[in-house]
């Protein structure tokens, strides 16, 4: 392991971030927040332009003649059924975030927007913005990254590494190898830090769920750390054995629980209100998603500017941080599909599910505020992690639904950490499809340590800043990969036109 400089440097960097965070959590969070603030202020326009560009390129690729190209040899067939494929890619891409933000995010936006708009209009706008954060733009980032990796791996026979397209397209020389090496390193750092944040968010939510389930009041950091330890112990075993199909079952179980919960809330709650909200949100999203992608809120006041940085920009770089991890995963399960199928499946179906999800969980939240006068906004102000459970507590069978959220969050984190340790092991060993147990355990330990850092910060805003810091270089890398893809597709054209 120590003969591989990439693995060594990546472990040193991520390990150093973890040690710094554990020794001086506030210092790391403050540093990340300052640096990310500077980047967001100066480059907001570039980040929004880049993600909009990715969406437009994705749509163009799907409907251009390139859409017919297969991700594999011309006679390769898809390995998984379309339903399995869609379920797996969705679980990988969003997972625990949906459980965390389902009600909390639309209501947080509502708090701000209702200062500027009539509350009834503010609810619609809050849902629109939430759908924007989790919709077409997010999935276009995943789709393009996954498409580059799948195309170069299955069509052109390169290893599944971020560096492979760069070396393939621009030729193998010292410069491209160095840039490729740096891109692999930055991808590893972005994945590791992003995953650490996800672990923290999941642990925060499980802790709130356990408190709600057993009526514990103000358990504090002790319970959080206890849950974290149980989680770490739970993912050690899957890291040491090749679970293969077992991991798919865990992931599908988490998705089934999540989907079942959504249907239960829809049917047990104010169904007409929620469905009305979903249809309205869908219409507003279809009408405004592309133009909203170019919105930088430059002419608004500082309050809106800060909100834009800490939500929209943070989300976009968050998806970029996850892009190499999710991209590799999506690529692996998409061999044999055409570019058109790939892009339509990866972008449209998860976006539709997100609109449904936030429509249901946001919808019941707004019903509570606008029709029943339930004090949900107080919970949003004081304890974001507890919002989902507060809402579930107002529905029938709260013990069952809260238990379902806790189980699903736990499963999502386990599958994410195990998959990420595998992808990190693969990236850091030159594309080895079977990284050794020792390498996977090393990454498991680093991911746990980074998760602990984020937990110790005890602030979801600090978590967001640290993730954004790790992810920012990836804005540049993904665009470079897109250029590689476009050049390779241009070169392929004479063979099939």
């Amino acid at each position, binding site marked *: 392991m120590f003969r591989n400089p990439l693995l060594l440097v990546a472990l040193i960097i991520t390990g150093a971030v973890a040690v710094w965070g554990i020794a001086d959590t506030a210092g790391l969070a403050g540093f990340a927040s300052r640096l990310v603030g*500077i*980047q967001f*202020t*100066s*480059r907001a326009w*570039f980040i929004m332009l880049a993600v909009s560009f990715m969406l437009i390129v994705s749509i163009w690729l799907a409907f251009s003649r390139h859409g017919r190209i297969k991700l594999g040899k011309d006679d390769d067939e898809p390995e998984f059924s379309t339903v399995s494929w869609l379920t797996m890619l969705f679980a990988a891409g969003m997972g625990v975030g949906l459980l965390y933000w389902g009600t909390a995010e639309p209501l947080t936006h509502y708090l701000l927007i209702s200062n500027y708009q009539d509350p009834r209009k503010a609810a619609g706008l809050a849902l629109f913005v939430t759908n924007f954060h989790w919709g077409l733009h997010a999935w276009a980032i995943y789709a393009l990254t996954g498409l580059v990796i799948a195309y170069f791996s299955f069509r*052109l*026979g*390169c*290893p599944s*590494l971020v*560096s*492979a397209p760069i*070396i*393939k*397209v*621009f*030729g*193998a020389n010292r410069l491209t*190898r160095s840039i*490729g*090496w740096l891109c*692999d390193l930055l991808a590893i750092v972005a994945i590791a830090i992003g995953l650490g944040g996800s672990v923290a968010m999941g642990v925060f939510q499980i802790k709130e769920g356990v408190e709600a389930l057993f009526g514990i009041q103000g358990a504090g950091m002790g319970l959080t750390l206890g849950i974290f330890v149980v989680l770490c112990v739970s993912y050690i075993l899957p890291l040491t054995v090749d679970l293969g199909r077992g991991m798919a079952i865990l992931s599908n179980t988490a998705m089934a629980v999540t989907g079942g919960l959504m249907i239960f809330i829809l049917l047990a709650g104010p169904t007409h209100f929620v469905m009305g909200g979903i249809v309205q949100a869908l219409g507003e999203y279809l009408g405004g998603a592309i133009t909203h992608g170019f919105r930088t809120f430059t002419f608004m006041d500082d309050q809106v500017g800060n909100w834009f940085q800490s939500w929209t920009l943070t989300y976009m770089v968050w998806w970029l941080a996850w892009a190499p991890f999710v991209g590799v995963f999506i690529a692996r399960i998409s061999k044999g599909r055409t570019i058109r199928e790939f892009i339509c499946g990866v972008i449209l179906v998860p976006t539709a599910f997100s609109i449904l999800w936030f429509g249901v969980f946001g919808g019941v939240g707004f019903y509570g505020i606008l029709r029943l006068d339930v004090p949900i906004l107080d919970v949003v102000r004081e304890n974001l992690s507890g919002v989902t459970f507060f809402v579930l507590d107002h529905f029938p069978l709260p013990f069952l639904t809260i238990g379902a959220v806790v189980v699903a969050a736990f499963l999502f984190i386990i599958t994410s950490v195990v998959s990420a340790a595998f992808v990190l092991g693969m990236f850091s060993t*030159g*594309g080895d499809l079977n990284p050794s147990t020792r390498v996977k355990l090393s990454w498991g330990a680093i991911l746990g340590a980074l998760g602990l850092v984020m937990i110790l910060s005890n602030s979801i805003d600090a978590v967001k800043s640290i993730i954004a810091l790790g992810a920012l270089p990836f804005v*540049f890398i993904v*665009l*470079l990969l897109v*250029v590689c893809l*476009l*050049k390779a597709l241009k*070169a392929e054209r004479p063979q099939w036109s």
Partner: protein
Amino acid sequence: MSNLLDTFMNIEVFAFIGLLLWLYFKEFGADDGDSSDP
């Protein structure tokens, strides 16, 4: 000072966009045999 930093950071972005355009249009001798060992 902050304006200088802002200018510098945006010049980096402009240069990067220029680089991407140049890379897209320039012809390279693509590698066929060595890419499996990056």
